């Protein structure tokens, strides 16, 4: 672009902005076809493009803009009605203009862009209109083309009386013409304005208002009022300047440095304790904060900036899918840092496309399910605790949780037995996994299974988060949580070993102090866990994760963190404070370590490493094994002393069967093909032993459908060096059974029935079950004991 003149550069930039506006206006015009304001605005904008392109000798662009303008003038004059077909053609015209502009931007010429077919479409549309309402000859339009680009200077005004005449508009700005305003407010007579305009055209160099005033055709007060009304727009245009984003970035970096220097200074001054110095330092601190805020503001842009393209996207997409979608935008003035806006743009567009394609149903289906034929897609942006939340909500059919679960199992992302234990939202979050799509058919819009994972990655790259919630039949809400700015984040500083680390506050849910008495860390065969309000929270020791010397379990803190939809606790020695830190990119050589999201300069001037919470979670192998370790953990935790009896709740067919946890040694999964037969019994080889299996479904006569899957879940019970395994369909939960109702059971193999977690649950007679697996289990044991005695 360097070789293009400044004028062309400016023209391109302005035109792109104008085109975006036209897009929006066209889509709105389709909604309210009678809006003259919209038509005039579109007309003016396209006219400006036409004028300037003529002036800059981009003839193809001019011709195309001219064609669009001709069609618009018919709409404006009411010769032809606004129909969806017209809008489509006009949108196509705008696209044509856009590709011409890109071509100009890329190689300085407008070659190779097909405008003829678009122009033909426009003409066809006009002829269609003419057939319906013959009027308005083409010659008028031709005449227009001949008179382009005299467009600078002061403004001759398009008036009601002179609709055919093209209105040369000022290239810059889109002020409403003075004459039009005067006529509208009744301050001047149309014919007077008309004649004043005529005088201007004939060479009178006075301004319109001056002519009217000097000829006594209008009141000075009315004219100045109208000029006032015009001015604000101009003053915005004149008071705003375009600034290179790089310059803003540099400023932002420098302010970041300043913040750090201030932090150091304030710390030093506090140590000295000189009152005057402290005051100065505080003042410096305040000024720095304000400066920082100011610089931040310069980079802020309303989210409208990226939303503005969406009405068009929604319109085109819903038309091509024969759906009716109304787009509602709330909070479009919400501001975000520019670089973040850029990063959010594509993910947002994807979510919107996805919502139109998969979220909102066809009109027939909507009617069938008792909704209106038109779906509503709501974009919502708002501030929330130092973040900006952006929601894409549709009122469509909602996500099908079962289908997602099934798909997740098919794709090997989840095990079947995990699903019943999972939160609905965790299952829904599976759609963010790479290659995941439940779409029945692949459309050109979506369903290929690329996309949601990219959305997630992109948003997480900028320190944000994505979640989804859905109610069947009522719709789906996709929610993006985005930090306000990239460069400065709220963070917690923590100590681990003798070093200080930084954890982004966005990931932190809560902090727990471990005193070793009332709160303590427990171990499940070496894996640390913590009981957080009755649920087991897998723990990651930061010192261990970093390969440092492992410290004690007492007097430490657990930071409850959330990443990738998983919760875990990070054990650190000390949590110091929250502060704003400036994120510095970390040298590329440390990317491979993957544990660090960046670095920052701490208050004392040292470098602090910012921890990457999600990779910390991943590295600690939390992801897949979380559920499992939970269960194992609790089985161990029992010995540590719980109140009441703790039960392992399993599912056997339709029934829920509870096994006292203190009789459980381990939970295992065996591949089905490892099950062998010894006589009539099923056995597996386990730790060098032959482990007899008993299927609780057989034992209890619960012949349901055999659960499918590669593996079987078993509960291993060991005593005196012997083990048996009870095969269950799946592990449901661990429950405490102290106060629930209990009733003795008559049935064989059970000792009773209890209500656990609002469900009737049968209590297994473990001894009986074990004997079923191995009739000699106890007798041999007794024999052994006898041998010992003997």
């Amino acid at each position, binding site marked *: 672009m360097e070789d293009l003149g400044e004028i062309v550069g400016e023209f391109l930039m302005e035109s792109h902005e104008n085109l975006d506006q036209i897009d929006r206006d066209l889509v709105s015009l389709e909604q309210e076809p009678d809006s003259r304001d919209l038509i005039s605005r579109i007309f003016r904008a396209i006219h400006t493009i036409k004028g300037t392109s003529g002036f800059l000798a981009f003839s193809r662009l001019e011709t195309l803009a001219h064609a669009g303008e001709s069609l618009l003038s018919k709409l404006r004059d009411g010769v032809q009605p606004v129909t969806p077909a017209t809008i489509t053609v006009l949108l196509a015209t705008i696209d044509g203009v856009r590709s011409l502009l890109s071509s100009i931007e890329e190689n300085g010429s407008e070659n190779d862009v097909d405008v003829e077919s678009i122009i033909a479409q426009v003409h066809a549309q006009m002829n269609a209109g003419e057939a319906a309402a013959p009027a308005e000859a083409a010659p008028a339009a031709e005449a227009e083309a001949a008179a382009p680009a005299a467009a600078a200077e002061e403004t001759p005004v398009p008036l009601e009386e002179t609709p055919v005449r093209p209105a040369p508009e000022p290239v810059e700005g889109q002020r409403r013409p003075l004459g039009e305003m005067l006529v509208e407010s009744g301050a001047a007579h149309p014919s007077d304005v008309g004649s004043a305009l005529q005088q201007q055209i004939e060479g009178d160099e006075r301004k319109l208002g001056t002519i009217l005033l000097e000829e006594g055709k209008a009141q000075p007060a009315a004219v100045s009022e109208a000029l006032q009304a015009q001015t604000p727009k101009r003053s915005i245009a004149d008071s705003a300047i375009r600034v290179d984003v790089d310059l803003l970035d540099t400023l932002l970096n420098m302010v970041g440095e300043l913040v750090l220097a201030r932090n150091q200074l304030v710390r030093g001054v506090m140590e000295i304790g000189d009152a005057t110095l402290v005051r100065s330092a505080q003042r410096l601190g305040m000024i720095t904060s304000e400066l920082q805020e100011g610089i931040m503001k310069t980079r802020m842009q309303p989210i409208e900036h990226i939303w503005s393209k969406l009405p068009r996207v929604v319109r085109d997409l819903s038309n091509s899918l024969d759906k009716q979608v109304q787009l509602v935008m709330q909070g479009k003035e919400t501001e975000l840092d520019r670089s973040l806006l850029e990063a959010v743009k594509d993910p947002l567009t994807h979510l919107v496309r996805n919502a139109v394609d998969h979220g909102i149903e066809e009109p027939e289906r909507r009617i069938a399910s008792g909704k209106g034929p038109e779906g509503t897609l709501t974009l919502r942006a708002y501030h929330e605790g130092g973040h900006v939340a952006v929601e894409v909500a549709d009122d469509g059919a909602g996500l099908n949780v079962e289908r997602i679960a099934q798909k997740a199992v098919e794709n090997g992302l989840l095990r079947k037995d995990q699903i019943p234990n999972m939160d609905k939202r965790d299952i829904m979050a599976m759609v963010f996994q790479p290659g995941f799509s439940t779409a029945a058919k692949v459309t050109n819009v979506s369903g290929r299974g690329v996309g949601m994972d990219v959305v997630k990655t992109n948003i997480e790259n900028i320190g944000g988060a994505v979640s989804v919630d859905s109610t069947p039949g009522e719709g789906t809400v996709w929610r993006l949580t985005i930090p306000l700015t990239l460069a400065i984040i709220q963070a917690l500083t923590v100590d681990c070993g003798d070093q200080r680390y930084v954890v982004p506050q966005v990931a932190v849910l809560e902090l727990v102090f471990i005193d070793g008495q009332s709160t303590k860390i427990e171990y499940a065969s070496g894996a640390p866990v913590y009981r957080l309000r009755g649920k087991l929270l897998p723990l990651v020791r930061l010192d261990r994760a970093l390969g440092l010397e492992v410290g004690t379990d007492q007097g430490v803190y657990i930071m409850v963190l959330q990443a990738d939809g998983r919760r875990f606790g990070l054990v650190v020695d000390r949590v110091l404070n929250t502060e704003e830190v400036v994120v510095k990119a970390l040298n590329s050589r440390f990317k491979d*370590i993957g544990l660090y999201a960046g670095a920052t300069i701490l208050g004392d001037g040292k470098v602090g490493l910012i921890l990457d919470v999600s990779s910390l979670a991943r590295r600690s192998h939390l992801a897949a094994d979380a559920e499992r370790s939970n269960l194992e953990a609790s089985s161990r935790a029992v010995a540590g002393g719980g109140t009441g009896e703790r039960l392992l709740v399993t599912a056997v067919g339709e029934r829920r069967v509870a096994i006292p946890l203190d009789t459980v040694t381990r939970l295992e999964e065996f591949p089905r093909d490892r099950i062998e037969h010894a006589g009539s019994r099923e056995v597996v080889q386990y730790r060098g032993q032959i482990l007899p299996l008993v299927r609780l479904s057989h034992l209890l006569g619960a012949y349901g459908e055999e659960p499918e899957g590669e593996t079987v879940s078993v509960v291993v019970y060991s005593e005196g060096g012997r083990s048996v395994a009870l095969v269950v369909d799946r592990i449901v939960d661990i429950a405490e059974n102290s106060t629930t109702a209990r009733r003795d059971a008559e049935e064989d193999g059970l000792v009773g029935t209890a209500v656990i977690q609002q469900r009737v649950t049968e209590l297994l007679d473990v001894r009986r079950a074990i004997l079923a697996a191995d009739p000699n289990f106890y007798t041999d044991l007794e024999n052994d004991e006898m041998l010992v005695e003997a």
Partner: protein
Amino acid sequence: MASRQFATFEVAEQLFGVEVHTVQEVLSYNEYTPVPLAPPAVGGLFNLRGQVIAAVDLRVQLGLARKALEGPVMNVILRGDGEPVSLVVDRIGEVVDLDDETFEPPPDTLSGPTRELVVGTFKLDGRLMLALDVNQAVDTYRATT
């Protein structure tokens, strides 16, 4: 006769040199932030006027034991490729003008990690200076792989 300027420094009694234009600055610094799990050659990070710089321990690169980063340590900060990077050295020497005539390829007897880092030998008065390959010297993954 072409000559080149070298900034010289000592590591484990051996004189090394890098071409002056690759050096941004030389300074002593005494607070380093260790980076757990980083390649062993990374001594730590430090704050150079608000910029985070990685300090590469040249001793480790040469196959020697780590240098204890306690107290002031000399850093030769190289411009690097896009981001500055520091070489931790024992002592800073002079900047010397060297004729290409005094240059020889590394001796065949030189082997081990040092051989990979050195592009040549300059014969100074009374001692030899090994010219470092800057890119190799700061490549912290080299030694570990």
